[in-house]
């Protein structure tokens, strides 16, 4: 019976956040707190010949300026810990917490200044003199493996991070006698994080009783921060507590562990006072992980009816300067292949390379939007070549409903066979065609063209492996008050965890949602957790919460049977009480049962029961629930100015059973707009020396309300067979197909000129250039 699950419960988080009562890292003020600022590299690649911090140290209000050596042993000789070790690394070059004798990107931290206020810390940071000896910089991933390429790290033989690949099926056979072999090359650039809250770290050590280091961090992964920090600082796990308070957006980059999360705690320990560092927006642009460039060069072999036989090719992945985020981005750029299509043979190799730019890490979707874009480019190429409607080519290649579970033929990094659990890709495509009036578009387009307007339509399909493992856990505990406390590790960055998870608990325990007390993302409250990344939390955590709730329910019924002297099957749990069916007078409240299970002194624990009306459950995930969908974008392109107006955008989305449809829509809408930003606006620019040229919101464009199209959503629910609630993740699916939908719509609008866009983001200048090239080609 569900009273809350599946309904649009308004968020319990909202009143607090709407009245200014959120509590983000910068809102936390501790007694005697000091403030930090970082000195960062001005050069993309340089040797440091000396640092003069003496004058800065004498500035009023300055308590310390620490260079790497000042952090003390063992830290001055130790690079940061690797949270994601891998045998595939050819070179695993991690950063020191502060630069040792070389800086490898503009923004690389060199020193920390701690002062009475952030203003004073920044004043002093500007006065730290660094004697640089500039070195050639590796800036363009496309040429980073060339023999004459500048090397990103002194002492390295080359810029090679790792080579990974996906291969299955008989690729020789697929291409051998294929009637159609097409090739496309495209550069994908996915910009940065741009959560509206920048990063922030506040650390304080209580030295008593063996010491407890408490770190508040604006992170998606407090347990990863704790584990990495304890490992690096050589502290027992019990001596480190990490809390993610309200976090103002994460989008992937806040799922990593950063030098600042290590240096600020060390400074707090050295000074014996709380130290707070709040990233400013320029630092967000230059020092936070980004997603950066990937160059894809693919060949596709297809039959004359559009059926794809195989895809082969190569990816060059920009790793940026260091490997502190492991190979997560390369891995997620490979195993989602071949997308929603039943393609018998794939052989794709990925080379990840060092550049002297910020380290690269997942941004909303990680490598999955790149994979979606790549496969959709193949569909577009085949359809164009064979003069078929792209939806026909898609439908011809989709995995069919009778093929689930579908195994393309390769394995995940964890060693499990890649497997799609469920979905109906054809149904989603049909639904979005209907929603977007796809079948009448050609008429609209013809009318517009006759009036000198260039309308275009673009279709894009995708799958999303959601609910990545390895595990998440929860404790569900009934309090003597009758309220239900839920403790879990997963941190929210705005997804509405408190609401959604409380819905699950309230339904299972028959209480009002107002009676659920949800607490999360504090390593001292719940022992183990992973993090909110990869659209995994609804799957991993709600399953654990559900299972724990079921166990609590069973325990309550069992105890109530003793108390009420009734058979368990005659009992029901409704309205916070267990009652004998048909005898409402014979009833005991959950609070009373909870009280019986936590007796004091002369009382006793009921026979056969463990104390506490509570249960802890861990959900270990194997095999991802597969979300899927199709999008259709309609645009108008101004062929004089290159401006793209997005007229309407339609989404068909399948994330299995929806716990709260309104919040799912919120995830989709935000995800789509992020993808539209990727397609049209968001680009980190660097000059040839590696200097970033887009470090504020006048130079780097984020999507704004006035530019966004109306977005319509239709759902298709294919419940996942892999978890009891039938859920699939929904955090990133909106982003995945958006770039191709827009790029294809632009190409469709400019079909009369034969323009192929391929690279994204695509700005008005580039559209004008492409039109000029097309015109020049037409003349020759």
């Amino acid at each position, binding site marked *: 019976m569900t009273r809350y699950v599946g309904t649009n419960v308004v968020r319990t988080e909202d009143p607090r956040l709407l009245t200014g009562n959120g*509590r983000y890292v910068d809102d936390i003020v501790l007694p005697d707190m000091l403030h930090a600022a970082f000195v960062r590299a001005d050069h993309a690649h340089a040797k440091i010949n000396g640092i003069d911090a003496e004058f800065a140290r004498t500035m009023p209000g300055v308590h310390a300026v620490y260079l790497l050596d000042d952090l003390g042993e063992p830290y001055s000789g130790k690079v940061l810990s690797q949270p994601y070790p891998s045998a595939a690394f050819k070179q695993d070059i991690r950063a020191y917490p502060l630069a040792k004798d070389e800086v490898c990107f503009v923004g690389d931290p060199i020193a920390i200044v701690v002062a009475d206020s952030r203003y004073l810390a920044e004043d002093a940071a500007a006065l730290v003199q660094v004697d640089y000896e500039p070195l050639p910089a590796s800036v363009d991933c496309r040429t980073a493996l060339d023999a004459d390429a500048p090397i990103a790290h002194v002492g390295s033989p080359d810029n090679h991070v790792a080579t990974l690949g996906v291969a299955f099926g008989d690729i020789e056979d697929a291409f051998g006698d294929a009637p159609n072999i097409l090739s496309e090359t495209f550069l994908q650039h996915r910009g940065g994080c741009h*959560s*509206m809250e920048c990063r922030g770290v506040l650390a304080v050590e209580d030295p008593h009783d063996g010491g407890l280091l408490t770190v508040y961090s604006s992170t998606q992964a407090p347990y990863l921060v704790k584990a990495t920090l304890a490992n690096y600082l050589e502290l027992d796990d019990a001596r480190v507590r990490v809390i993610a308070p309200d976090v103002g957006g994460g989008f992937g980059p806040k799922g990593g562990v950063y030098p600042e999360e290590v240096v600020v705690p060390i400074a707090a320990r050295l000074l014996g006072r709380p130290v707070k560092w709040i990233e400013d927006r320029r630092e967000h642009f230059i020092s936070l992980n980004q997603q950066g460039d990937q160059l894809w060069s693919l060949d596709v072999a297809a039959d004359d009816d559009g059926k794809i036989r195989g895809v082969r090719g190569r990816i060059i992945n920009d790793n940026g300067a260091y490997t502190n985020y492991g190979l997560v981005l390369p891995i997620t750029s490979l195993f989602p292949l071949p997308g929603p299509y039943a393609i018998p043979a794939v052989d794709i190799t990925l080379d990840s390379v060092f550049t002297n730019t910020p380290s690269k890490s997942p941004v909303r979707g990680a490598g999955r939007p790149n994979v979606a874009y790549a496969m959709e480019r193949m569909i577009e190429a085949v359809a164009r070549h064979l003069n078929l409607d792209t939806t026909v080519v898609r439908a011809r290649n989709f995995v069919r409903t009778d093929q689930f579970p579908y195994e393309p033929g390769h394995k995940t990094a964890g060693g499990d066979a890649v497997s799609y659990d469920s979905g109906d890709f054809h149904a989603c495509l049909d639904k979005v065609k209907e929603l977007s009036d796809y079948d009448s578009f050609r008429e609209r387009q013809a009318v517009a063209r006759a009036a000198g307007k260039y309308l275009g339509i673009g279709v894009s399909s995708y799958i999303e492996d959601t609910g990545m493992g390895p595990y998440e856990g929860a404790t569900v505990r009934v309090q003597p008050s009758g309220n239900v406390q839920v403790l879990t590790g997963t941190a929210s960055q705005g997804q509405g965890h408190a609401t959604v998870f409380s819905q699950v608990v309230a339904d299972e325990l028959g209480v009002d949602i107002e009676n659920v007390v949800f607490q999360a993302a504090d390593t001292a409250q719940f022992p183990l957790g992973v993090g909110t990344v990869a659209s995994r939390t609804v799957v991993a955590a709600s399953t654990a919460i559900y299972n724990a709730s079921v166990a609590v329910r069973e325990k309550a019924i069992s105890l109530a049977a003793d108390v009420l002297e009734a058979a368990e099957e005659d009992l029901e749990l409704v309205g916070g009480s267990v009652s004998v069916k048909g005898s409402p007078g014979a009833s005991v409240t959950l609070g009373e049962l909870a009280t019986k299970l936590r007796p004091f002194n002369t009382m006793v624990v009921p026979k056969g029961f463990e104390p506490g009306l509570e249960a802890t459950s861990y959900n270990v995930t194997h095999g991802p629930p597969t979300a899927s969908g199709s999008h259709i974008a309609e645009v108008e392109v101004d062929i004089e100015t290159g401006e793209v107006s997005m007229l309407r955008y339609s989404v068909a989305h399948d994330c299995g059973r929806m716990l709260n449809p309104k919040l799912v829509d*919120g995830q989709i809408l935000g995800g789509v707009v992020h993808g539209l930003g990727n397609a049209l606006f968001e680009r980190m620019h660097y000059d040839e020396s590696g200097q970033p040229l887009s470090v504020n919101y006048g130079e780097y464009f984020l999507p704004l*309300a006035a530019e966004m199209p109306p*977005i319509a959503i239709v759902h298709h629910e294919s419940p996942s067979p892999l978890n009891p609630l039938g859920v699939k993740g929904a955090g990133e699916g909106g982003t995945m197909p958006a770039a191709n939908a827009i790029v294809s719509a632009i190409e469709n609008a400019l079909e009369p000129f034969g323009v192929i866009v391929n690279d994204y983001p695509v700005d008005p200048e580039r559209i004008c250039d492409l039109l000029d090239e097309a015109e020049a080609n037409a003349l020759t």
Partner: protein
Amino acid sequence: MSDTRRISLTVNSEPFVGEAETRTHLGDFLRQEAGLTGTHLGCEHGVCGACTVVVDDEAVRSCLMLAVQADGSSVTTIEGLADGAELSPVQRAFQDHHGLQCGFCTPGMVMSLTAYLEENPSPDEAEIREAISGNICRCTGYQGIVAAGLQAAAEMRGERS
């Protein structure tokens, strides 16, 4: 070296007197001196709008205004909108339409819309989109915020939906 001024202003209808370093912007002053941490600093260069507050009936980016410039002014922050537990029409509409996720841009969005609806009580969707295009939201895709703006406007005109 610090050069400070004593300033007096009205904050959320209450008189407030504080010491402001002359270089301190209004956003930091409100957060640190007045303890009103609901005003958020997102970019500190005047584009994202997260720090928007209302100064003498005008929506202002508090990162671009010095605290000393607010001497003698009346400032309303996000903390000043609700009447006890009763949310303002704009705040309530944000909850109704899922117009917020992480909540970080939200105070600025709410303040911008509140000031805008005073100025234009009957906006259409395009006007609302334009009105909030000085505020960046990374989470919502704006659609819920636009719907919230329309509902709040209708409610403030006395049309209950």
